């Protein structure tokens, strides 16, 4: 066990955990931030996507000991009032079916738009390919990413 001071959503959070513990479980079990979802545990489905700095990463494969000083953003901290352009677009297009994968989808989409404010369909497909939606909302996800890009331009 070791103590880690983590910068999460603009606040410093202190946790006392085994350094091998993935950020996914630090968030969910230790900090009660359950917006980040467990899907596969091997970085294949994208449900656990968070931002490390500006990059979308799979938190199930990110040991807490590897985070260091990097700023973490989770779905809970993407915006203060749920009004990030990607969140607004998701509501406008009414993307979710079951909704379970959508936090991860939104985190991947918002990281994409941060580095590329008007992605092509192909760039969207590449950026979003690591996020599985079992309900099959991919066509709406694409529409919502494009809408968020438009509204933000």
């Amino acid at each position, binding site marked *: 066990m070791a103590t880690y001071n983590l910068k999460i959503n603009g606040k410093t959070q202190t946790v006392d955990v*085994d350094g091998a513990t993935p950020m996914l479980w630090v968030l969910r079990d230790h900090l009660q931030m359950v917006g980040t*979802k467990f899907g596969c545990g091997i970085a294949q489905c994208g449900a656990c996507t968070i931002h490390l700095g500006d990059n979308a990463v799979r938190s199930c494969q990110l040991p807490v000991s590897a985070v260091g000083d990097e700023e973490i953003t989770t779905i809970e901290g993407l915006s203060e009032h749920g009004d990030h352009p990607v969140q607004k677009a998701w*509501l406008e297009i009414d993307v*979710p079916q079951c*909704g379970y994968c959508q936090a991860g989808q939104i985190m991947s989409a918002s990281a994409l738009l941060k580095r590329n404010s008007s992605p092509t369909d192909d760039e969207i497909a590449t950026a979003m390919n690591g996020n*599985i939606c079992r309900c*099959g*909302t991919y*066509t709406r996800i694409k529409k919502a990413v494009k809408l968020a890009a438009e509204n933000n331009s």
Partner: protein
Amino acid sequence: MTLVRTQLGRRAFIKNTGMAGGGLVLGFSFFNACKPKVAEAVAMELEMPETWYEINGYLKIGDNGVVTIMSPNPEIGQNVRTSMPMIVADELEIDWKNVVVEQAPLNTNLYSWQVAGGSRSISSSWQNLRMAGATARHMLKEAAAQAWQVPASEITAIAGVLTHEASGNSAGYGEMVSAAAQIEVPEEVELKKNSEFSIIGTSRKNVDGKKIVTGKPLFGIDVMREGMLIASLVHPPAFGKQLKSFDAEEVKKMPGIRDVFSVKLYDDDFDKMAFHFTAFNEVVVVVGETTWQVFQAKKALNVEWEDAPEVTQNLTLFGNEMKVKHPAGMEDSESHTKRLKELIASTAKVARRDGNPEQAFKNAAKVIERSYSCPFLAHNTMEPMNFFANVTEDHAELLGPTQTPEWMEVAVAERLGLPLEKVDIQMTRQGGGFGRRLYGHFMVEVAVISQRMSAPVKLVYTREDDMSQGIYRPSYYATYRAALDADNNLIGFHVKAGGIPESPLFANRFPAGSIDNYLAEDFTVDTNITTGAFRAPRSNFIAGAEQSFLDELAEEMGKDPIDFRLELLKRAEENPVGSPESNDYDASRYAGVLKLVREKANWGQNEAGVHRGVSAYFCHQSYVAQVLDVVMENDTPVVQKVTAAIDCGIVVNPDAASNLSEGGAVDGIGHAMYSGLTFKDGAPEQINFDRYRLIRHREAPKAVETHFVESDIDPTGMGEPPFPPIMGALANALYKATGRRYYHQPFITDKPPLIG
């Protein structure tokens, strides 16, 4: 939340007294048995009232006019948590923006069919939901009539406002509700005419949308409770194995681990329903403080397995008894395929025989025969199986994702030794269902663990646990044969289908009824690999096989594939083979969706480089036709667009229904193209998403367009019907694009044998 069982069974809840002038009039009785907890506003800015008045089990109205509507059924992504309350709100005549939705707990006295299964949520509760709203509207009008001393019949109720024009009186629901709550529940109440609907038939956004996009706790796996422990299971790694022994000494010393023990789920003499069932009746349980600690401990656990004997399970399904035999031994995919091919070539059970099919094939100038198959599939809901339980000496509280709370309550109560009324089950939003959560063994598991630990416990499956637990979509095989005469007329049709362990055949569905000489046969193969309902059971294979065969047949006969189907349907409509009741579909509605998709997809006006396939199917009382467009990019087929035409009766929430159509198309393309479970030595060879392929963003159609048939028929199924036919449309479009027919799913592995 306390469940109160009254003497009145649910059958007494509604007694249909038939039609009366103007609208539907129903006789019924409501029980206000349930006291819902304080509602959580859907629109977070909605101001909560000081006092709520319960009008009936479906709704309560606040003194400020805000209305809470209970959504009775499990929400698995089919959007019933929005569309069921919409139906109540419409009959109540309330502005949708003043509605708060709450998930109802399991309550068999108040609600019927609290199940997410068979695409029946809306259709089975359609009248009850309408009655609930209409009753409240009636009672509010009655209260206003008494207050204003005017006839109730002269009062109008529009968007939460009661008005009596002649006297100039007007009041909001909030002002009248305390009086309305005292009004006697009417014996009969008039429902709106379809033309008067103001919410039904309009698109309303997902009531949980804001919570979903902001990451609020919503799902079973998100449940947190003071003092809660985490549990996870270790089950046998292969079907045909069972627990022999385990050594937990070292594991018990690992950080955070509280206990390790084995649990036997059901006693041998327990009278199981099909939904109670699990392949692995005895499992090892690891309980600890955090999920990660428990998962780590599971990996370190030393467990020995042994060969399981042959078992015959006695199960009941809706009152029917069934015996399910699980042979001993470790099975593999190679022997499965061999067995299916052997059986398809030998005798099978005749399910339907019209005319003289044997003679027709004997007289045929040409016989076309094609075989189709599909593998086992795992449901793979994105939220792995999980459930919360807090079991004390005389009470059990369960909370989590289940599609069948009512049926699982029986098993939980029996296993814990508690009376039914001491078991309370509440449902969270669910991260997918697809049939997997019909089988709630995990609820019994967590209840037993909580009872043993005397603590609140959340049971969490890893993805690997989930994918190797069984309850798979069965593997199916079908051979279709058609007899053509010298003039290329279809004179005989033969389908022989089977599966492990169930047959996919629907003998009385199309094209039965449209061909004089028709033979349908089927067979089954026993297995110890457990299977269960998977979105549109059986249809999810047979639709694609049948619709691919019809496509090939149309080509052989030189006919347009839509025209060919319409010819058959015309025959079935005008002069059906067999008695009218013997055919399970309405030929005119079937033809209707084909005609609509033909028009909307501009069928026949093909763009260069776009290869099209069509398919249509009937299941869950709904009709779906789809046209799928493929283009070739770098020698690879890419699905560009799907155009769907759907007849599911009245569409409650069109945009949400379109979402299901889009998802169904993506889901069907994905499973037909990419997914499959194979077995070796009894174990699935794919247990996570590194080897089990699910369709991904890049592989999804670029666009899905949905058109609904305008209809006044009460709603029919919507969750399942868009899924099965697309597999046929895909195969047919791939043929046009590549020149090769695809027969064996997943199509990415369906390669012709190497020659030369």
